């Protein structure tokens, strides 16, 4: 029997954003005309391509190159449409279908997905109590055994698969569980301690911090110390699986969560 999600749904945000985008697009097309519309969409596609390219540079995840090519293709296509008497419609359409298909495949298989919600959901699944007890300070979540090289390899894996964003201090590695990859790419935060994170220090100690903002995303007021311990255990398990060369199981575990929107 599948568990019901412990996180509140965020579908309404996606629907709202899509609706606003659609209304704006139609509005601009109707008010400003065809050419202005093409210019606006061109700018947006270039921006989207650049952001995805930055994401590729940061994460070394080659899946991000597909949207770069896709948006680049749209940009080129729009330029062709804007030139009078120049309409390579068929070639453009075929290209869009192929690239679109590849992009849909990548989206369905979650190869580019930022796993923020999966991480929070997996952390909450073992928590049975709802005694609240939120406190804005880090929780000592136990210890693990790892070498510096193992930790480095693990953080690279975590970043590549969109699980967390690593920051390195002198004595510890902080894995920040951000709602998205793109905002930190564009607006660099100085203090990762204001986010939800899991740290691995040089002595093998693990600590967890969950922000109030993220805590409020759960349907219930989960017993806070249990939630922190569970998040620490989750990353400890991920580390162990990685050390054992079973990285696929980490991805499978997150992919078992269906419809996590």
């Amino acid at each position, binding site marked *: 029997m599948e568990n019901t999600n412990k996180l509140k749904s965020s579908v309404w945000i996606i629907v709202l954003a899509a609706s606003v985008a659609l209304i704006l697009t139609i509005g601009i097309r109707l008010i400003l005309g065809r050419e202005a519309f093409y210019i606006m969409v061109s700018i947006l596609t270039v921006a989207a391509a650049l952001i995805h390219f930055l994401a590729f540079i940061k994460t070394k995840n080659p899946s991000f190159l597909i949207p770069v090519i896709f948006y680049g293709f749209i940009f080129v296509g729009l330029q062709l449409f804007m030139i009078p008497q120049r309409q390579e419609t068929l070639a453009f359409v075929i290209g869009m279908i192929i690239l679109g298909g590849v992009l849909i495949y990548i989206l369905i298989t979650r190869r580019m997905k930022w796993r923020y919600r999966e991480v929070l959901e997996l952390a909450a699944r073992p928590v049975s*109590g709802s005694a609240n007890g939120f406190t*804005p300070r880090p929780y*000592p979540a136990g210890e693990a055994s790892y070498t510096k090289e193992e930790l480095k390899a693990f953080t690279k894996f975590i970043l590549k698969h969109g699980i967390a964003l690593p920051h390195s201090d002198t*004595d*510890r590695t902080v894995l920040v569980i951000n709602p998205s990859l793109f905002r930190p790419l564009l607006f660099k935060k100085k203090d990762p301690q204001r986010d939800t994170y899991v740290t691995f220090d040089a002595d093998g100690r693990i600590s967890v911090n969950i922000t109030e903002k993220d805590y409020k995303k759960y349907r219930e007021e989960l017993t*806070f*110390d249990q939630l922190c311990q569970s998040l620490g255990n989750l990353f400890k398990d991920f580390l162990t699986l990685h050390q054992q060369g079973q990285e696929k199981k980490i991805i499978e575990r997150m992919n078992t969560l269906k419809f996590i929107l």
Partner: protein
Amino acid sequence: MDFQKISRLGAILSKDYAGNFFRLLVTYQDISASEAASRLNLHIKTAQDFLDGCEEQNIVVKTEVFEKKRPYYRYKLLKSELEIRIDLTAFAEKDAFENKLMWKIREKKNSGALFKTASAGNRIASVHYFTGKGRERKERILNVTKSQGIFLYHLPFPTEPHREVQEIIKKAQIGALYVPEVVDVISVLHRNQLIEKA
């Protein structure tokens, strides 16, 4: 000699005219406040207060004298030496200290306190909390030492079971030398209702 008395004596001795005053007291058989004031070029009230303070400390003896005018006091030196000895270890609350090690504590739910972490992340740097209500409400900041910060990092969360202070100290691997200051911060937090006892 109790500390309050010593601190009052310290206040007398710290006056910049104290040395000259004692020179007069040693030289004269006895002296009045007005005579001392005129000799030392002080206000009579100042001289009076100094001499009364010395009398309270049993350094001089005060005698009432009746002459043509209304009665007044004359002051005579009682001691030729002053010794101040303070046992600082008396300030340590030994019994209370040992009791507090046995306290079972955890962070209080919804205390409103903010535990700010140090940049290293494995200890607390300061605790921000509020006192008072309404217009009297004030923010207080308690800057803690490294040992106190490590202790507070291991303080049980509001939903965890209470744990003995000495158990937390052991878990946090805090050295014996730092235990008194840890106990001190527990007192402060308890007094301000940021932690609760079982």
